[in-house]
């Protein structure tokens, strides 16, 4: 994954964007892509680590009965 602050001309950034199939956006909207990459990096950094390595993700959303 790209590091925070990756520029639109960096090879790593371009690889990620093209790998995601966003070639058109690389050409036409590099600033929007830079914003998206930076936001993703910031978000990953705000995720807290879990002390419990066995903590379950399942179910991803609880649909609880109202019956």
């Amino acid at each position: 994954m790209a590091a925070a602050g990756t520029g639109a001309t960096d090879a790593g950034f371009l690889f990620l964007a093209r790998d995601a199939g966003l070639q058109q956006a690389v050409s036409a909207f590099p600033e929007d892509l830079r914003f998206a990459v930076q936001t993703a990096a910031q978000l990953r950094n705000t995720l807290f680590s879990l002390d419990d390595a066995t903590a379950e993700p399942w179910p991803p959303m609880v649909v609880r009965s109202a019956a």
Partner: protein
Amino acid sequence: MNASFPADDAARRQEKIPAHEPHWMTAAQIAAAYRARSLSPVELVQALVERIAGYDPQINAFVSLDADSALAQARLAQDEIAAGGWRGPLHGVPVGIKDLIDVAGQPTTCHSPIMAGHVAREDATVVRRLRAAGAIVLGKLSLHEFAIGGPNGDGFYPSARNPWNTRRQPGGSSSGSGAALAAGFLPLALGTDTGGSIRNPSGHCGVVGLKPTYGAVSRRGVFPLCFTLDHVGPMARSVEDLAEAMNALAGHDPGDPGSAPSRARDFAVDLERGVRGLRFGVVRHFHETDARASDEVIAAIDQAAETLRREGADVRDIQLPPLQQFTSAQRVIFHAESWAVHANWLRERPADYSSTARRKLMVGAFLGAGDYVQAQRWRTQLIDAVDSALRDVDVLIVANSFDPACEIGDEPEFVRTYGRHARSPFNLTGHPALALMCGLSGEGLPLSVQFVGRAHDEVTLLRAGAAFERAGQWSRCHPSLALCAA
């Protein structure tokens, strides 16, 4: 500053509208007027269509208004009611539909050129249920592009504006729903809420909005933003109307894989019970220390807590995990799922999105699978934390927006303030959340509070909301469109 009662300037901006003016009637008042034969559905629809024609060019609440169809539905309702076939409190009541919800035979634009040419073949379940209750579909309402964009200059459709001050943004993404209610264009609207999109415009427009429990209201026929965060719910000018809308909307739908098993309930059953005996927990750290809301918002929430105490409630502070834990997990899931929905269009037609939507929707391309799983693991723990708090109290009191609505063209202020809120935690956890007006800022803009309840206990939430509404009387405040347009 006076957040609890209208300041003099703010008071001059309000109209204390007599209830007999049909455009300010609630759905319950309309139903009473129909039964008393002092108003007919055709008269009401004609009055609303005229009002929309006069004022919506300044507000942009409607994407499309189907006046002919609405009048035909009104004539049918009028005949049915006259013949003794009253279907219930929503019979003959006009409703507006956020334009990412399908209405048969009409375009679903999602406020985006991406959807050009898309015409819905059938009604979404929520529209079908409103029609079965006798409601009149008046038109499709404006939104932020795909419920994720924002008010912007490069959007395909004009952005809705706030009737309290048309230079201000109305909140979003159900921006047209909030604006139409505040402008007196209709008494009831549908919104959707993935990170707060019912409660944000409800708050900024001074109306009420309910994000129901996840799974309580069907999403079938509603264009998705994030599968595990999306909720559909009602917006109105009174809590009673929300309850009656829920009576029509709620219930299991086998066509929605996220729909909860349910039994028939009367959501209005406890509206008159008051709050004596109810326990409220103020989640003060969300808006005072985890992030700092504006002084006016903090004062308004304190005043709301005091109002509930005065009405006989037990009100105390309560602790949840830090706000950032909720918002980080919610945002990772939000971006990952919305990217999954939009990836193909972003690859092939990026120029057809507004810049705001494009930027937000591409974030998920750069998150990893592990990030998504990690956020889901957090989610299960945060759901448990809210459930635990709601064993100690019946209702949580939580800030809505941390700031009053900013100017629509002030991009830096929009970016600074739009994410400052405490709404998305309850999209993450699925608990029901009700937005209520609780004051006016010094500039005469609505301030709002959220009540949050136990999963599938909307009845208690609406009971609390109705009592607060009676005590606060904020629902009787309306913007003066003539002043706002000046």
